[in-house]
């Protein structure tokens, strides 16, 4: 009997066509783990297994000390008994029901009276900026509204674990930022373990405490955002996961990150903002670079990671940044940990988003 | 293929089929003899067909079996047939009145009615009075069919008000259900009982209640093959035809 709060899962699933999934996930109460990986990596299968929609072939899944699915001895708790809250990709709102009925669905399925469930649903509508929309058909909702209803529906049953399958994938770019912030707030408020499935590194790094990279059914790396960016273990992690993410504040047309000023091409209106810089957009120079790019500064190399023909060179001050260059460049520059180095980033290479 | 060409091809195909249909008819007209015959004549006319074609190899008989009234409708609506053999004089009279018979029809054979019960007589039927019993499953031909009309005449003559459970559309389906044991008693033709011997038993209808069913036969006015039709009628009314009729239980007029 596993006697621990949160999710303790270590299981394997053999799907058709020889695809084998083997994962191990321990998520303590209040912690958010992101499962980050390309399509087909098995992410949705993990959600389905924890939610009880498919059975595992090996291992076990336990939640707050209760065994949900195990082979020896054979235990399988039906999905409706597990107390999981799932937010599905595509939301999967019941089109023939109103907003309130959707949110109240889980409660009414568990025996709550219609009146009581309706009032709980109403409260959730208020909490998620859906006031007055209780009786609207879900067919008439915008993308952002639908997403919030899906979130409310999952949270309303007071689940023991929250599973989010690509919660922001169905949204367009302008709605995504706000939705991500709202999601972040509610995730913070949720005291149980949280598992976030995504293929978007920004989402993973911003919302999760810990990121697990999954490829081909196996977890290839576990760590914080900085750790993965600094030392990606696989091609995929390097290509997609290893991205520089910086939080800053827009003021007078520039972005201030910590105490450092970054010049960007399109600055949004004043306020908190998110900068994304691909490691390959970070250039390294022995001397002050010519043409004086607006973002250039001198700093010290803090870490070098060599991978095949590429190198990841990281600096810590004044802002943490990782650059990806060829191994030859590193030799040509003659740098090592502790060396002095000039770093530059073109303003046009900085992606700015409202945070 | 160009869409317009396809359209013309389709039209031509349809036209060719229509034309060829006409030409085919004129060639086979002289060989085929279409005989529309009442259902109760189906067995005997099949034998008749075989014998006739042996004597007249130049002809090919096509038997069109059906209820007398249904056949009458077909003829009145202009269906091409050469000969009409009806189980009811009334039906034939209607055809004659419609001008569709070549000349006055002649009655070529007679039939009588009989009570039919499943082999073994499970309903313990003795006579016509049993048809009033409500515990029995009683079947008659529908009144609009000659067999049904005659059956009701028989029962009326014996002053019996039958408790009918089904009015079968033709005598064959009535016979089938009696043979299966689903119907305990029915009134059919004598010839039917002979053809279904082994499956049904029969109980004679008292002579004073019995009805004679007369079968008229006629050449039709719009016969596509009048020569063939005439030959068939001559054969049916010949000595050889009479022998076949008597073999099946029919009586000569």
């Amino acid at each position, binding site marked *: 009997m596993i006697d621990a709060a949160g999710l303790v899962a270590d299981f394997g699933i053999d799907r058709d066509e020889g695809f084998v999934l083997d994962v191990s996930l321990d998520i303590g109460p209040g912690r958010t783990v992101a499962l980050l990986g390309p399509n087909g990596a098995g992410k949705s299968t993990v959600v389905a297994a924890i939610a009880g929609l498919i059975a595992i072939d090996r291992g076990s899944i336990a939640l707050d000390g209760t065994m949900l699915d195990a082979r020896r001895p054979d235990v399988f708790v039906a999905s409706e008994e597990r107390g999981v*809250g*799932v937010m599905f990709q595509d939301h999967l709102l019941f089109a023939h029901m109103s907003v309130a009925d959707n949110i109240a669905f889980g409660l009414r399925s568990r025996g709550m009276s219609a009146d009581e469930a309706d009032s709980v649903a109403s409260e959730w509508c208020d909490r998620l900026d859906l006031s007055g929309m209780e009786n609207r058909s879900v067919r008439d909702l915008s993308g952002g509204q639908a997403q919030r209803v899906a979130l409310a529906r999952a949270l309303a049953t007071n689940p023991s674990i929250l599973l989010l399958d690509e919660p922001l994938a169905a949204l367009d770019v302008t709605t995504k930022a706000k939705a991500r912030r709202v999601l972040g707030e509610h995730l913070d408020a949720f005291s149980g373990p949280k598992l976030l499935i995504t293929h978007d590194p920004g989402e993973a790094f911003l919302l999760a405490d810990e990121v697990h990279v999954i490829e081909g059914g196996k977890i290839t790396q576990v760590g914080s955002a900085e750790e993965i960016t600094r030392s990606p273990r696989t091609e995929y992690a390097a290509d997609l996961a290893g991205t520089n993410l910086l939080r800053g504040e827009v003021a007078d047309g520039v972005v201030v990150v910590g105490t450092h000023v970054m010049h960007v091409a399109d600055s949004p209106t004043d306020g908190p903002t998110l900068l994304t810089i691909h490691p390959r957009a970070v250039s390294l120079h022995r001397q002050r670079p010519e043409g004086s790019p607006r973002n250039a500064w001198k700093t010290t190399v803090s870490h070098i990671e060599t991978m095949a023909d590429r190198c990841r060179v990281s600096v810590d001050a004044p802002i943490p940044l990782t650059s990806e260059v060829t191994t030859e460049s590193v030799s040509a520059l003659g740098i090592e940990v502790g060396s002095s180095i000039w770093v530059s980033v073109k303003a046009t290479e900085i992606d700015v988003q409202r945070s | 293929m160009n*869409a317009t060409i396809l359209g013309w091809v389709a039209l031509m195909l349809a036209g060719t089929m229509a034309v060829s249909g006409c030409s085919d008819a004129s060639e086979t007209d002289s060989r085929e003899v279409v005989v529309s015959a009442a259902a109760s004549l189906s067995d005997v006319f099949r034998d008749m067909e075989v014998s006739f074609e042996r004597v007249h190899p130049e002809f090919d008989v096509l038997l069109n079996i059906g209820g007398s009234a249904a056949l009458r409708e077909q003829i009145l609506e202009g269906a091409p047939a050469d000969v009409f053999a009806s189980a009811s004089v009334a039906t034939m009279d209607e055809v004659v009145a419609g001008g569709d018979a070549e000349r006055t029809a002649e009655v070529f054979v007679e039939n009588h009615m009989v009570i039919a019960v499943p082999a073994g007589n499970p309903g313990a039927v003795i006579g016509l009075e049993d048809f009033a019993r409500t515990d029995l499953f009683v079947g008659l031909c529908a009144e609009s069919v000659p067999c049904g009309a005659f059956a009701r005449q028989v029962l009326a003559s014996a002053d019996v008000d039958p408790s009918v459970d089904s009015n079968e559309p033709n005598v064959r389906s009535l016979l089938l259900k009696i043979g299966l044991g689903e119907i305990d008693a029915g009134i059919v033709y004598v010839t039917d009982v002979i053809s279904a011997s082994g499956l049904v038993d029969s109980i004679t209808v008292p002579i004073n209640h019995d009805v004679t069913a007369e079968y008229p036969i006629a050449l039709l006015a719009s016969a596509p093959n009048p020569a063939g039709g005439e030959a068939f009628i001559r054969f049916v009314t010949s000595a050889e035809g009479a022998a076949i009729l008597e073999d099946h239980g029919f009586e000569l007029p």
Partner: protein
Amino acid sequence: MTDAKRRTSVRRTPVALFVLAGLGVALFLLPIVGLIGRTPWSDLPSLLTSDIVVDAIRLSLVVSLGATAMSALFGLPLAYVLARAEFKGRTLVRSLVLLPLVLPPVVGGAALLFAIGRRGVIGEPLYSLTGLVLPFSTWGVLVAVTFVSMPFLVITVEGALRNMDQRYEHAASSLGAGAWTVLRRVTLPMIWPSVIAGFALTWARALGEFGATITFAGNLQGRTQTLPLAVFVALETDRDTAIAVSLIMVVISMTVLVLLRDRWWRPT
């Protein structure tokens, strides 16, 4: 549609297809034209209120609605099991259920007679144990009619269940809904248009059933003579009644199909 759009879309269909399609429509239109041409319009009211016709209408309505209800009672669970449950021989079972669709109705009626007639394989022991006789009774008509029309409901609903996105059912389960709740509050509402279409088709088929009825249940006014049987019998002696009743049946069927519009073959 604007006139310009109209002309464009019509122009794109090849002429040849229109010709062939037109011939196809003619095939369906001709019998109705023939029927309307022969209808004795002035006598229609008296023909339709004669007791043969009234009995047949009453019987047909009772039996067709009853058959639809029976089809729902047994057919809906059957459709669900065929669509969702995994078991060996599922293809065989489905073929069996669809058999009445391809079998000539008379053959179906004869088979019913052999099986549950008074001397039938199952009918005989049933009769000696309970005294229950199905042929020549209204219940017999109900059985024969359900036999031929239930496959329509099964095939329509099974199709809808297969086509629907089952992830909605998963979502419902994860929210705490047990199997019956999922069925009642999610699955059924999602396939409801197809269920309705299935009911309509089943009822229409039930109304028109002839071969199995006359073979198995017999033909008796008031007890087993439904509308199609009444037409058949009337055709022999009372053509006007036959035409009048046929017209009624065509009107009813056309109404049902027009009301259904496209719904019965479109996925939910």
